C-alpha cells in the first residue's frame, strides 16, 4: 500500500495527462485506481445486501439476521475507511488532517458509547423495561391541562428480572418494577429463593408477585397455601405440600400432566431443610 504514496508512481508517469495532475496533486490515485475503488465499494455494498437478503420474509426476521451483525459492522467500517483514505485522500495528505479527523471520530464514538451506557442500552432487556415503565402519551392542545396519565396494563413480563438475575431474585426486585411479594421472613424467604433458584419450580409454576415465577406448565400456585388443605381429605396443607414435592404423582391436579415433575425434583437434589423452607414459603401463598 505504501507504494501508492510514493511520489514517483510508475503507472502514472506513462500518462501525460496524469503527469500534469501529478504536478499539482502529486499523490492522488489515477482514474483507473478510482474506478477500482468505486468497484470495491459497490461490491461491498452488494455483499452487505446479500448478507441480509435471506431474512426478508421471515416473521421474526431480525432474530435470524443477528448472526450477520458483526460482518455488517466490519464491512461498513471497511467502506468508511476506503472512502476517507482514497476519496478524501487522507492516505496521501498530511498526517495532521488524519489526526484532526480521527480525533473527532473517536470522540464521537466514545460519546455514543457513554450515551448508550447512561441510558441502559447495554442492559439485556431494554424494551421490557420501557414497556413496564412507560406512561402512554395522551395528546392535548397547548394550554389544555394534561389530565391523568392512563393506566397501563403490565403483563407478567414486567416481573421478570432478566436471565442473569435468576439466582438472586430478591436483589433484582426493585429494578424489575411492578408489584413485589410481601416481605417474607426466615424460612419462607429462603423458600422463595429456592422456588425461583435451585429448586427450579418457577420454570413451570406461576406465583403472582414473585419475579421470575411465570411458568405455565404446572398449576398456578399464587394461592396454594389456602387450597392445599382441601386437596386430599385427611391431609393438612403442610402434609399435602410436602408430599407434592417429594412424590409429585401421588396427587395430580386435574388438567395437568403426571410424571413431569418427579425427575426435576430429583435433579434439584433438595436437602430436608430446603424442602421445609419451600413448604413454609408455599404455605404463605394465601
Amino acid at each position, binding site marked *: 500500500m505504501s507504494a501508492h504514496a510514493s511520489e514517483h508512481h510508475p503507472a502514472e508517469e506513462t500518462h501525460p495527462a496524469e503527469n500534469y495532475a501529478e504536478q499539482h496533486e502529486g499523490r492522488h490515485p489515477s*482514474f483507473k485506481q478510482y474506478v477500482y475503488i468505486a468497484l470495491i465499494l459497490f461490491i461491498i455494498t452488494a455483499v452487505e445486501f446479500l448478507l441480509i437478503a435471506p431474512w426478508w420474509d421471515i416473521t421474526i426476521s431480525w432474530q435470524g439476521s443477528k448472526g450477520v451483525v458483526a460482518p455488517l459492522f466490519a464491512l*461498513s467500517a471497511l467502506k468508511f475507511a476506503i*472512502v476517507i483514505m482514497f476519496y*478524501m485522500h487522507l492516505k496521501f495528505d498530511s498526517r495532521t488532517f488524519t489526526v484532526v479527523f480521527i480525533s473527532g471520530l473517536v470522540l464521537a464514538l466514545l460519546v455514543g458509547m457513554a450515551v448508550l451506557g447512561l441510558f441502559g442500552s447495554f442492559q439485556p432487556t431494554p424494551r*421490557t423495561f420501557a414497556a413496564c415503565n412507560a406512561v402512554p402519551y395522551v395528546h392535548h392542545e397547548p394550554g389544555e391541562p394534561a389530565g391523568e396519565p392512563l393506566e397501563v396494563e403490565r403483563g407478567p413480563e414486567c416481573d421478570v428480572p432478566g436471565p442473569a438475575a435468576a439466582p438472586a431474585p430478591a436483589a433484582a426486585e426493585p429494578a424489575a418494577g411492578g408489584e413485589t411479594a410481601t416481605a417474607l421472613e426466615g424460612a419462607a424467604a429462603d423458600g422463595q429463593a429456592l422456588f425461583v433458584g435451585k429448586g427450579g419450580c418457577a420454570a413451570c409454576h406461576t406465583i403472582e408477585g414473585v419475579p421470575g415465577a411465570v411458568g405455565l406448565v404446572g398449576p398456578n400456585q399464587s394461592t396454594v397455601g389456602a387450597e392445599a388443605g382441601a386437596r386430599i381429605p385427611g391431609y393438612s396443607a403442610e402434609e399435602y405440600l410436602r408430599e407434592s414435592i417429594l412424590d409429585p404423582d401421588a396427587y395430580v391436579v386435574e388438567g395437568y400432566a403426571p410424571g413431569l415433575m418427579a425427575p426435576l425434583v430429583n435433579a434439584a437434589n433438595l436437602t430436608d431443610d430446603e424442602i421445609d423452607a419451600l413448604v413454609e414459603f408455599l404455605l404463605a401463598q394465601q
Partner: protein
Amino acid sequence: MAQVGGQLPYSDVDHHYTTTGLNHRKLLMWVFLSSDCLFFGSLIATYMVYRGQSLVGPYPNQIIDIPITTISTFVLLCSSFAMVQALAATNRDDQRGIQLWLLATAFMGLIFIGFQVYEFNAFRAEGLKIDTNLFGTTFFTLTGFHGAHVTLGIVWLLALVIVARKGRLGPATALDVELAGLYWHFVDIVWIVIFTLLYLIGGFDAGPEAAHASGALFQPVLSALPI
C-alpha cells in the same frame, strides 16, 4: 520562500505562511468534518438508545424498505466517484469535464434526495410520523439531518458549476472543488453508517411482542463491538 512554498499544498494559490504548514481552509474543513462526526454521532447514539423501545407501530420491520434504500445508497456511492472525477478534471484544467462531473455529482445527490422524499412520504402514508413513536422521532431526526447535509452539498455543487461556467475553476483554484469534495464524501460516509445501522441491522427490529419473547435486543450489536 519558494522552497517552503514548494512543499505546501496549493502553494501557487495561497502565498501565506501558516504555523502548521497546511492550508488554513483545508484544515478548517477537516476540523468542521471532525466536529460533524460528533453531531451525527450523537444523533446515531440517540437512535440506538431508543432502538426497539417503541410501544406502538409502525415498527421498522413493517416499513423499512431495504432494496429501495440499497439502490439510493448505490447512487450516493456513484456520486462520490463523480466527485473525485470532478476534482481530477479541475487539476487537468478540463473545463468541460469539471462542469459535467460536478453536474453529475449534484444530479446523483438529487436522485438520493428524491429517494428520501419518496421514503418519507411512504412512511407517512403507513402511519409513521415524527411524533408517532420513538422510532419515528429518532429516525426522521437522524435521516432528516443527513438529507439536509446532502441538500446543502447539492447547492454547493451547483454554485461551483456556475463558477466553472465562468471559467474560474482550474488547477489554480482546485482547492475550491476539493473542499466541496471533502464535504460530499463525508456525507457519503455518514450514510454508510446510517445505512448499516438503521437499515441493514435495525430494519429488522420488530414490535414489543417479539422483543419480549427473545429478550436481549442489543446483544447482537454488543457482541459485535470490540469491548
